[in-house]
């Protein structure tokens, strides 16, 4: 069966109607992975046993003529920051090189209950810290659209796997843009839901108030379907919201006529590549031609988002990564003679340079004498950024922006300058600070063939509106 550009519906119905077996479908993807992944680097661990066991279950259901669950037989990949029971999970780090989790991430468990076939664990920047997937302790990921270029990060493997036809859909995580930016660089759909929409239980924590789990897919409908499967209250995550989950897929067909879409000037200012600007502006025109009202808005504190983010995120990371100490799991330095040696050498050996940099920054920001000046200050700026969105959403139903100021850059281009790398997230971090949902949908290519992404922001818990807009745009774009 030709696996390129398979949607969830096509894959599932092929298994349901027994045009192919789920086992054969999984094998087709493994064949593709064997031939294409050596040059891309998307997968860190393959889970053939688990995949084929699940496939067999789905095939048994289909053989009896029973209705498959919503993701029945559909091959998916999982970012390696989401724990999978009995299946090595590394967070892209050497400090967890041999770690075998005893539990499943809730989001993963929900996909498997829905019949998804887990092909393997996907490469990412170490502890989800990065915007290019060059910070993986194992190997970089290359953009399937141009192997000299980055796929984006930190969920580079998740984006590349979908773009290269090595999974029908994948899960990633987004703390500052790590789903949306790689989606835009690789030319696929990537969704960051509202904070609390999807349980974070089983997501190896980077920054607990900013982390989100979300899907990558070839189509908006597929992303909506995966979201619907994973979303909803989980008693294992006290920050998961007690808000009902709409049928995101059914809502897609509602149309967009009369919706007010905001264009924020701060996202179209200097630093935005001319081709990206042109492509996004054309997409806005398409939405206008579908009956949307385009309204200028302002998000005046946008330029302060990156500095606020890099204080809040690193501070939270410094606390979350304190657990990696060589005691209960993960790497333990062989050089350790005393307890404090063990902590320090384990962490220095096990963490890569970007992780260490962020831990140092976060520890500094929280230390005596600096807590008010940095951490508390950043939290106040966070309130201002959130108010910007609340004010804008009085006037509009969604806000459209470019996902990233540029298309994919070359490997090595920004890896020597941490600040330059951080600025790649300039259009995405705001949604993490405010907790609002955001989706990136492909809106064209640069002249040299690199994908460009259109980002749509929505109100808290209003994924329906942004999915509808993205779907309508995708259908009109062709």
């Amino acid at each position, binding site marked *: 069966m030709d696996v390129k550009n398979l949607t969830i519906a096509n894959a599932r119905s092929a298994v349901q109607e027994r045009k192919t077996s789920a086992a054969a479908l999984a094998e087709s993807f493994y064949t593709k992975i064997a031939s294409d992944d050596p040059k891309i680097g998307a997968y860190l661990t393959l889970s053939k046993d688990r995949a084929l066991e699940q496939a067999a279950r789905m095939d048994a259901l289909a053989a009896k003529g029973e209705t498959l669950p919503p993701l029945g037989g559909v091959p998916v990949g999982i970012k390696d920051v989401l724990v999978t029971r009995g299946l090595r999970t590394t967070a892209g780090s050497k400090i967890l090189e041999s770690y075998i989790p005893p539990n499943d991430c809730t989001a993963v468990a929900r996909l498997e209950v829905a019949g998804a076939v887990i092909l393997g664990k996907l490469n990412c920047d170490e502890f989800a810290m990065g915007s290019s997937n060059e910070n993986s302790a194992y190997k970089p990921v290359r953009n399937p659209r141009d192997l000299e270029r980055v796929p984006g990060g930190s969920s580079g493997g998740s984006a590349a796997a979908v773009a290269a036809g090595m999974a029908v859909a994948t899960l990633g995580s987004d703390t500052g843009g790590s789903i949306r930016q790689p989606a835009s660089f690789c030319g696929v759909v990537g969704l960051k839901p509202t904070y609390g929409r999807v349980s974070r239980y089983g997501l190896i924590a980077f920054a607990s108030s900013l982390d989100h789990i979300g899907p990558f897919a070839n189509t908006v409908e597929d992303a909506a379907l995966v979201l619907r499967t994973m979303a909803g209250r989980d008693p294992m995550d006290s920050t998961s919201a007690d808000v009902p989950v709409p049928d995101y897929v059914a809502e897609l067909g509602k149309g967009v006529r009369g919706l007010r879409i905001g264009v924020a000037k701060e996202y179209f200012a200097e630093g935005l590549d001319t081709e990206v600007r042109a492509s996004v502006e054309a997409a806005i025109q398409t939405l206008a031609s579908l009956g949307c009202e385009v309204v200028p808005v302002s998000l005046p504190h946008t330029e302060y988002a990156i500095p606020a983010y890099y204080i809040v995120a690193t501070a939270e990371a410094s606390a979350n990564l304190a657990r990696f100490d060589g005691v209960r*799991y993960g790497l333990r330095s062989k050089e350790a003679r005393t307890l404090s040696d063990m902590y320090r050498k384990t962490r220095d050996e096990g963490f890569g340079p970007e992780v260490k940099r962020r831990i140092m920054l976060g520890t500094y920001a929280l230390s005596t004498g600096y807590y008010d000046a940095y951490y508390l200050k950043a939290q106040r700026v*966070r309130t201002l950024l959130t108010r910007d969105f609340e004010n804008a959403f009085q006037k509009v139903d969604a806000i459209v922006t470019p996902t990233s100021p540029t298309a994919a850059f070359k490997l090595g281009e920004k890896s020597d300058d941490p600040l330059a790398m951080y600025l790649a997230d300039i259009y995405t971090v705001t949604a993490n600070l405010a907790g609002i949902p955001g989706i990136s949908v492909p809106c064209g290519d640069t002249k040299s063939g690199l994908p460009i992404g259109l980002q749509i922001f929505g109100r808290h818990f209003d994924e329906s509106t942004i999915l509808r807009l993205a779907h309508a745009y995708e259908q009109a774009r062709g």
Partner: protein
Amino acid sequence: MSASGKVTDKDVAYVAELANLELTEEEKPRMLRDLNSILGYIDRLNELDTKDVPPMAQVSDRFGVDPNKAGSERFEYARREDVTEGLRKSLPHDTALANAPESDGTFFKVPKVIEK
């Protein structure tokens, strides 16, 4: 925030100790340079007057909760009953030890704490 926001070698050493990171001699100057560069950029937060702006530590106490409820009542849904008899479903002992770098079968083993 100090006017210059300049981090020194001493600061790097102090913070590394707090973070339990043993930086190598090669790593220290690079870290100093990077921290100064990043903190220099972050300094622009001082352009904003935030004295009357409340800090926002998290999203979930404002969005997705009932605004008519106050304080911990907003999170009633997140509470569970205490278990007063016996044990809730927990990680079995041997599963918990399965990833241990060193164990005696009962405890995690670590090097001695040696007084400095």
